[in-house]
């Protein structure tokens, strides 16, 4: 599996960090670097080693060479750990979400980016990890993901907004959740992230039973997070109606992401994560070949 991920890199156009890294950031020429980007008028104090002697001889101009900035990107994973991620249990949403986060974290670390995982449990405060920068830290990422079970009710929009307030420096933010919230509730947070020059990806993890509840007959649906109930008779017509609502909700999320220049992709829990990473995320422009 690592062999596949070793050929991939996160394609992040925004969120340039402060620390030197491997990721070249065009448009931010600087005095040192490895890749020439532009000329700048000489100013007293500039390093004479970067003075362009050919231009001085030919044009009698004092110009210095500027280089493309090389920075690291800190990739923040906001992982939904509310009770809804553990429901329906047979869908294994938590497991699949963790596998997805681990895969993307591994790709990021392999690209010499920094990774921080913030768990968003519903019944506790967010649990941010420290920042990992070594590829070998993938084990630590896995351990961090395993430390918090799903539970409680989460206001995902508020959590994203809070994250945007805390992380004022440009970075990349990957939100992994089932996104079973009103899309409008996410808009403030996404806008704040965009304002903070974050590269944002919204990755939805949904189970098969969440997309189609099956023939459960007459029953009382109970919200796993709030405990609210809703009696229904799940007839074939109701099932079709529900599938339509799910599709509409996904379309709304996709539109919201587009509006905020974010990447949106949906991962069905019955689909292999590597295929999703190398396929769907590549198609969405979030992952590319090295």
């Amino acid at each position, binding site marked *: 599996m690592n062999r596949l991920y070793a050929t991939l890199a996160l394609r992040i156009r925004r969120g340039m960090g402060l620390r030197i890294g491997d990721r070249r950031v065009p448009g931010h020429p600087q005095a040192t670097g490895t890749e020439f980007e532009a000329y700048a008028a000489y100013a007293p104090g500039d390093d004479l080693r970067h003075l362009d002697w050919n231009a001085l001889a030919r044009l009698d101009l004092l110009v210095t060479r500027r280089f493309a900035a090389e920075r690291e990107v800190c990739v923040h994973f906001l992982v939904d750990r509310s*009770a*809804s*991620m553990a*429901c*329906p249990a047979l869908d294994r949403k938590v497991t699949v979400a963790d596998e997805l986060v681990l895969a993307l974290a591994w790709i990021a670390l392999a690209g010499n980016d920094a990774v921080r995982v913030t768990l968003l449990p519903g019944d506790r405060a967010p649990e941010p990890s420290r920042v990992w920068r070594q590829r070998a830290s993938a084990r630590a990422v896995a351990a961090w993901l395993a430390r918090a079970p799903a539970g409680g009710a989460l206001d995902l929009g508020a959590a994203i907004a809070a994250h945007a307030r805390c992380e004022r420096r440009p970075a990349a933010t990957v939100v992994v959740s*089932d996104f*079973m*919230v*009103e899309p409008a509730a996410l808009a403030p947070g996404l806008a704040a992230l965009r304002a903070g020059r974050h590269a944002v990806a919204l990755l939805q993890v949904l189970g098969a039973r*969440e997309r189609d*509840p099956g*023939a*459960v*007959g*007459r*029953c*009382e*649906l*109970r*919200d*796993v*997070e*709030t405990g*609210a*109930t*809703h*009696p*229904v*008779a799940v007839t074939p017509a*109701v099932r079709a*109606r*529900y599938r339509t*609502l*799910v599709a509409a*909700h996904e379309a709304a999320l996709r539109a919201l992401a587009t509006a905020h220049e974010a990447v949106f992709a949906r991962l069905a829990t019955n689909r292999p994560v590597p295929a999703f990473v190398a396929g769907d995320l590549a198609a969405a422009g979030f992952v590319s070949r090295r």
Partner: protein
Amino acid sequence: MTVLRPAGAVLFLAVPALVAFWVWDRRRRAVLVPTLLLWRRIAPAPAAARRLPADPLFVLELLLVVALATAHLGPAVPGAPPASALAVVVDVSASMGTREAGGTRLALVRRRARAMVAEGTREVMLIAAAERPRVVARWTTDAALVLARLEALEPLDVAGDLGPALAFALAEARARPAARVAVLTDLPRDAVGLPPADVAAVDWVQVGRTDDNVAIARLAVNAPPFHDRADATATVVVRNHAARAREVVLAASVSGVPWARRTLGLGAHATATLVLDRPPAAGELTVVLEGGDALAADDVARAWLPARGPVRLVVVSESDAVARALRTAPGTRLEAVSPAAWTAARGADADAVVFDRVAPPADVRRALWVAPPPGAPCPAAGDAGPATIVDWEDGHPALAALDDPGGATVARAVRLDPPPWAAPVVLAAAAGRAFPLLVVGERDGRRFACLGAPLDDALASSDRLPLYLLALGTLGWLLDADAPRVVETGTSVRVGVPASPTRGLRVAGDAVVAERAGAYRVGGRLLLANFVDDRESEVGRDGGGEWRATVDLAVASGARGARDLGPAVAAAAAALLVAEWLAWLLRRA
């Protein structure tokens, strides 16, 4: 519409239980969902529909429970009474052969049974009851067949037991609609020891009055081994069962030779004992009561007088100690043979052969092994030292001379290892462990015995007397190998060889039961069967009568005059069960 089993209504309690379960199950079935965000956009199910589950599974289960309860309740519709059935139990015990004014008692009940069968077209079962029930005719509407079987019935020389026959007849009758049971016997209803409920459920016909019967109550022969025939005696016990004095003549003969003829005057219910001595011959002893009475079956008894003469014994031993000891027995002609000189021809003319601590190849008909070594039929498994007799088989002829062998000691005993076909007769114990001391067996017409104690010349001394008597008794049992077996009718006896069917004998493999008194030859051996039963010989009755059943069997089983719909409803319940299962499978799919 009636119900046959009102108590079955209790099963209807399952209906509210099922409804309660469904309501509880509905309440319990809350399906957890991650969020109601999308579901809230779907109209909720009406509340009324939630309270009353219209689930097809629920409906099917409700119908199933109702059908089962209804089937158990036994709904019935009035219908034409089914054809009646009659189970006739006829007593064919020995007392039914008693002669009355109008013939034997069996003839009287046969006449009544004939009338019962002829009352109308009905199914009839005929059961003969003696010491065990016997189905003479299974349920049939063929009256001619039943009457023919009825005419063929004869009293047997056995005691009667109506209990099993009546239980069988009641069970058969309860399984049929509108069935009756009739018992025809010479016994009063309260003297058969049956449950009152059973007696009340049957028609009872009792016949018989006379008590005129004088019977031979016992015949025993005492012919000790090693004694002359003239020393044998016969003891006869004669009992008058009548309420008036009787005078009878008792005649005894042996092999057709008259032995004694005595006239006996017996008071009412009196008993006389006669001892006959000095028999004129050996062979079959027949004792007959002359003078005539109502029951002839108990007027004849048979026994066997063995022909006692010099007993030819061959003792095979390294020493002459055993020969010296056995020579002291009266009437023996003994030959001592060393093991080296032993040949089968030496034992051909012997009545019995005694092998003392040797086991040469032997083809003899009667043999006693003393302290047998390996190679004998029951070899010694080890030396046990001094031993004490702790158990024995009461009544075995080998112990006839020992009143109470318990506690008798043996100076040196060996443990015997009996073969499967042999049985231990005497058990001894040494060092807290019991083992066979005397083992006897009969196989292929040969008799064998093994004694686990060495005999010596001091055998006849007073302190060794039990062992001496045990050895002589065992030899006596061996010498009686060819003697006829004397049994009582109605008792099972093994004859050792498969017996062929014989009139008067009931045969099962090598076991036979004499149903009639008399002399039989079974497997080349004589079998003398006597009918001796005081209770059966007590034939006096009060004249009898006829009593109708006071409890209707058909009503008790809920079958008379109504057609039970229970089975049909039960079948419908089974179909509902299948439908419910299919519906469940469909839902699951």
